[in-house]
């Protein structure tokens, strides 16, 4: 884990509300695993006294690391305003990572901003696996490349929640492993539906330090409150006390 102030290589607006930021850093790139995140913010005066945003890695190609970021508040708007060569403040990689399996039938389920870590995971799962990737969102702008897309407004793919057909998929095919990331309501529903397969969830949370120091981002588990940033963000679904979330 290191802290750096780095120039942004590229900032692309990839959807109405999403940007993709790419940096080029050999050390960071060599340390990343799927599920890891970085604490990031724009190196702008307006952000001086603001918290960093925890952002999952979307892609690592050579020394290039990309992040997909949904523009929501002042921090992400500042990131979206950056141009190539302008700087961001970044530390990481942080958190644990998804266990990588082989020779398995795998279901990936993402919702909204839960897509990037699963896309990165998919790129690291080898060809011995058989992978089905479902992505869901409010509208077509929230959908990224996958096998089946679900939108609440029906503007792309199947109308409805991404969890809508999972019970059917599970009847038709047996999955060894389910990986998911997205809003808590989605993960909660998914945890109820999936009972046979091993299920790993990557949790999203509001964070301050991002490295286990402040205890601000906990979730309830069978072993008490666990820090999403340090004990996670990847948890085995069966260890989370979903009813308390």
């Amino acid at each position: 884990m290191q802290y750096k102030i780095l120039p942004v290589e590229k900032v692309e607006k990839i959807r109405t509300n999403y940007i993709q930021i790419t940096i080029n850093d050999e050390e960071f790139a060599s340390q990343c695993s799927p599920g890891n995140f970085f604490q990031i913010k724009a190196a702008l005066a307006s952000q001086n006294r603001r918290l960093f945003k925890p952002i999952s890695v979307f892609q690592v190609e050579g020394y290039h690391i990309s992040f997909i970021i949904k523009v929501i508040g002042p921090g992400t708007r500042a990131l979206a305003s950056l141009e190539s060569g302008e700087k961001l403040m970044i530390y990481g990689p942080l958190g644990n990572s998804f266990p990588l399996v082989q020779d398995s039938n795998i279901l990936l389920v993402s919702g909204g901003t839960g897509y990037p870590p699963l896309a990165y995971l998919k790129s690291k799962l080898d060809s011995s696996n058989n992978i089905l990737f479902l992505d869901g969102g409010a509208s077509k702008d929230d959908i990224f490349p996958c096998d089946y897309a679900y939108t609440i407004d029906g503007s792309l793919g199947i109308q409805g929640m991404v969890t809508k057909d999972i019970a059917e998929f599970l009847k038709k095919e047996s999955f060894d492993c389910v990986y998911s990331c997205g809003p808590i309501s989605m993960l909660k529903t998914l945890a109820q539906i999936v009972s046979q397969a091993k299920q790993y969830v990557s949790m999203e949370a509001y964070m301050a330090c991002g490295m286990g120091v402040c205890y601000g981002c906990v979730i309830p588990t069978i072993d008490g409150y666990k820090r999403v940033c340090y004990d996670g963000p990847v948890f085995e679904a069966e260890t989370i006390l979903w009813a308390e979330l």
Partner: protein
Amino acid sequence: MNDISTSLGKITLKSPILNASGTFGTEYFNFFEQEVLGAYVTKTITLKPKEGNPSPRLYETETGLLNAIGLQNPGLKSFLNNDLFELKDCLTIPLIVSFSGATEDEFIRVMEALELHSGICGYEINISCPNVKNEGIAFGTDSDIVFNLVERLAELTERELIVKLSPNVADIALIAQAAEAGGASALSLINTLYGMAIDWETGKSRLSTPVCGYSGMGIKPVALALTYQTTRAVKIPVIAMGGIHSWQDALEFFYAGASAIAIGTANFSNPLTIPEIHHGLQTFLKQHNLNLRDIIGKVN
């Protein structure tokens, strides 16, 4: 070389900068050398493990941070068996253990256990956490209770005994004087102010615990005033904290009377806050050919 060291009761610190309890970990030493810190203050521990409050525990406002952590910690036993060894192994700077309790007896039992271990330079007695009921702050708002507790703890140790005060009291000077009379060798202030945030769209509290702790730049003027009032009411040194983000902020607190300062919320917005303040202070002292002790309390 202009002298940046400071006296803190029984000890001398090579750097006048500490970390505020609960906002820091040895993880930060991945980013900078620990010697810029005068001492390392642990997250508050309690006799028994504490679960803390449910999420959400954090909310960032335009002027600072709200938190409702609730002193989550693994308890004394786990601290002694794990954390203390790791800290002693890692640290080359003095170690100060912060602890709290629900009863006077709990405070005493924690201190008695810590006294059996070497490598601890001093204690910070947390009687000011706003996020736990009948604990922490319940001790810090009544001067008689503060006096009795500190007197009993002071009898047990030769080490540095810092009492951490709450800003959420009618007259901080009275509490400070009670701690001094009880035998505290230093004071630290301020713990977080009471704060709250509500989602105006839904009417829901932003945090699981509606009235929680408020820290960060918005509390700096309050912290500065309370530092000024306290340092004029007692003779023992004061470690001041509350919204310090820069070396300029730090200087204000030294002028107000602080012997040392601590950095909390600013660690989250800039992980290099501590070394940057250290460097800024050194440069300032050199430019003006001053030692840090020359300016402490010299507000005019």
